[in-house]
């Protein structure tokens, strides 16, 4: 089989609209680089695809035809967003390509990349259950410092992320798993954690002000 025959499927696990999520920006960078190396690609937004039977079968057919499934998702409550778990439940029941591989990219809102570890363990278990070869996972912290824009337009903060993803692409097109160096670079803080949390806390207040609820951020509507 030549590299021209290889197909990568990007599954975007963020529920945000296309063009808005960090998950999509990370995944897009990878598939663009893989296309430049002769791979063909397809992108599916999980939440939208699960809304109809047609979308669901499109997702499953695309998974069946992929040589590499790239799952890029935001961390939700220490795990994967519910629609991503639903897609996993369906994929695990489905017949996939022999020797197909799964790779995952998790991004989270807290500064430390290690919050993503349990979620990546879950992805690895999915690979086992679905008969996919596990090609490794990348974990990114400080997702709140990034946006849905293309990574190359996100300034110097995206530098180490691009380095990490490029290392991952080199390995994946060569049939290997994600190297440790890519994992290390992705996990490095983008900015100091104290700066990140200070900017984040300021951001919550600024957004609340825009919605006219500045003094209400600590409200307890369900206090018994």
């Amino acid at each position, binding site marked *: 089989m030549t590299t021209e025959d290889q197909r990568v499927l990007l599954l975007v696990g963020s529920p945000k609209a296309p063009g808005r999520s960090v998950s999509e920006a990370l995944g897009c960078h990878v598939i663009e680089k893989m296309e430049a190396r002769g791979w063909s690609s397809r992108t599916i937004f999980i939440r939208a695809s699960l809304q109809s039977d047609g979308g669901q079968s499109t997702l499953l057919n695309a998974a069946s035809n992929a040589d590499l499934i790239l799952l890029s998702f935001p961390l939700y409550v220490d795990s*994967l*967003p519910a629609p991503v778990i639903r897609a996993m439940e369906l994929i695990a029941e489905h017949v996939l390509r022999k020797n197909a591989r799964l790779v995952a990219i998790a991004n989270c809102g807290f500064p430390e990349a290690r919050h993503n570890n349990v979620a990546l363990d879950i992805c690895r278990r999915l690979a086992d259950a679905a008969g996919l070869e596990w090609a490794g996972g990348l974990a990114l912290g400080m997702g709140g410092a990034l946006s849905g824009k293309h990574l190359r337009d996100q300034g110097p903060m995206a530098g180490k992320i691009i380095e990490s993803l490029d290392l991952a692409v080199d390995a994946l097109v060569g049939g290997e798993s994600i190297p440790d160096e890519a994992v290390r670079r992705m996990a490095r803080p983008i900015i100091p*954690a104290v700066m990140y*949390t200070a900017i984040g*806390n300021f951001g919550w207040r600024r957004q*609340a002000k825009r919605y006219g609820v500045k003094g209400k951020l*600590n409200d307890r*509507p369900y206090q018994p």
Partner: protein
Amino acid sequence: MKAIVLNGIGQADRNLDYVGGIAADELRGHGCKVESTILRDLAIAPCMGCFGCWVQTPGICLIDDAAREVTRKMIQSHLVVYLTPITFGGYSSDLKKVLDRSIGLISPFFTRINGEVHHRKRYAQAPKLLGVGIAHEPVGEGARIFKALIERNAINMHNKAHAACVVSEDQSATEMHELMRAALHELGIMS
């Protein structure tokens, strides 16, 4: 003591429903007033990731469906039980759809816990958390991941205490009762 069981057993796993009955009996035997919520029967939309529950209507999700009532009951209970088939080590999608919608129960503001960043509490009291995972094999890797996930969630959601118990389909009801009892005792809930 008020306990809410978030039953995340999905349509395809209905044969496991009896485990929900065993959990409810065990809780009642420990003096709990039990409310069981079968999540697969509720129309709950997935979280949209907008953070409106923090910055637009603080403490309440913007989507007006059954998840609002479930999250209200969660914070008003003394004990929350996550009951789920262990799904690749984690929760079923039916359980997860409500948990994703429950982050309004904590504050957006950051704090540090054990050297890591998390969110601050919103409510003074958060319930205790019991995870009941139904596994194909109780000692496998899935069980380890499930216990780690319960522990991580308890930090994030500020649960007062937490315990995880893993039961498996090939166990008898008596064995399941024993495992659940041990987990409740770990939480300081005695009969």
